[in-house]
């Protein structure tokens, strides 16, 4: 375009056209970026509620959902109840509880974590599972995505 004009004038005009197109496209690009980046669609429950009686010596762990995330609740040998994010930190599989280790095992790529959710060196995961706060009232358990040791750790 503008090939019939002197070089300088041609370049100025071309820059103006390019700038105009960019000025026009930018708000659309912004709106589309905002539209596709929305994360609130998953839904799910803010907290998971279950009874401690559901965790028996025969099946000492249970997977529950909090805000669409899998969470594993376990009863340890000393009857202490703990909850961890169940998403393997390696590539996102869901881990299972192995009371005999004791610890967590991911069957997708043989990842291992100890009973505190800390990844065992030499296996694929490079970071630990996050332990979550468990609010316990007699047998009633309530778990949110609040990490243990932060927030309202008073209960």
């Amino acid at each position: 375009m503008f090939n019939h004009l002197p070089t300088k004038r041609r370049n100025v005009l071309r820059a103006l056209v390019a700038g105009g197109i960019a000025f026009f496209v930018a708000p659309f690009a912004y709106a589309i970026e905002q539209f596709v980046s929305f994360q609130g669609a998953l839904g799910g429950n803010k907290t998971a509620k279950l009874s401690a009686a559901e965790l028996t010596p025969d099946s000492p762990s249970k997977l529950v959902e909090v805000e669409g995330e899998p969470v594993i609740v376990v009863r340890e040998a000393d009857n202490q109840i703990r909850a961890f994010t169940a998403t393997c930190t390696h590539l996102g599989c869901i881990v299972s509880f192995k009371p005999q280790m004791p610890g967590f095992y991911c069957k997708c790529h043989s990842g291992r974590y100890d009973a505190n959710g800390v990844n065992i060196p030499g296996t694929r995961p490079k970071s630990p599972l996050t332990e979550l706060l468990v609010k316990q009232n007699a047998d009633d358990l309530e778990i949110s995505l609040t990490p243990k040791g932060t927030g309202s750790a008073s209960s």
Partner: protein
Amino acid sequence: MNDLIDALHLREPVEAIRSKVVPRHRSSVWYYLGGFALFLFGVQIATGVLLLLYYQPTPEAANQSVELIMKRVPFGSLVRSLHSRSSNALIAVVFLHMFSTFFMKSYRKPREIMWLTGVILLLLMLGFGFTGYLLPWDLTAYFATRIGTEVPGMLPIVGEAIVGLLRGARSVSGATLSRLFALHVAVLPLITIVIAGAHVTMTALFGSSVPPGAKITSQTKFLPRYVLGEAILWLCGLAVLLTVAVLHPWELGPAYDMTKPVEPPAGVHPEWYFMFLYQTLKYIPEWAAVGLYTVVLVFWSLVPWLDRKAKQGERSPLFTWIGIILIAGMLVLTTLAYLSVSNEVAGQLPSFGSQATSEPFPLHQPAVDRDTTLRSKGK
């Protein structure tokens, strides 16, 4: 750039487009409508793909997911309203494009197949409108689709089979939603892209048709002059659509719950482009209406072969009159349909047990108090 063109053996088509000219005469302004329809179809694809990111095609989730788009997703209301408004604009433009090419007798040799693909594209656009209407799964959508899927049943022999195929169940249900969704986002777009591709390619091959008797005053180079003119129309159209979409977001009625059937809202009726058909069904038996429009459609498709005078490059006033009568008929039927709907809503016709509202044109029904409706029915 030139090397790439040569490597792809595209020298000839590229040269053809570079040297393409568009004739100018008193009717040449109508040429812009085809490109405008193409642009609006592009808007439909872009907004449609965006809506697919959040829409969920099940009776339980559909209405809720549209509500999520409208209320929580950033710019969601704009995207959905643009999709709905632009679909109406697209159908209007396609109708205008069809009638303008009809009156210019653009269908005559060598463009017979182009006309035929155009008729198919019109039907596809109406199909998009019909299948998309159910997707929000609100009361109006549900009842309009109950009625709409009943109509093909009037066709002899194949009617029942078509109804069964569309509904996938005895009545409009989750299976219907899945099927109309599949048609709307997969089947119809694929067919449309092929047919529209052929339609546009033929424009490039044959050039613009000059109506018999028109005097060519000058020629416009397709690149860049004509395309820039087209771009002005596209941008103006987009500006109008954006304004309407922002100021008047497309409404969403209450979800239809299949486990709790309710009466249809007063004055339930289809979108404006189906209103002539809706009104026809009031005057003549359903089988006759379906038969009549089938005959009209077959005649309309065969116009390039039937209009002998235009074929020989002569004026053909008979076909001009046929077009005028057809448009007049559609306009009269549409007007009558809107009058009867507004009468029904105003309660001037017996409307057994349903609440009369003062709204003249409830295109999109407000929430109906289901309990009141059911109680007054039970009395």
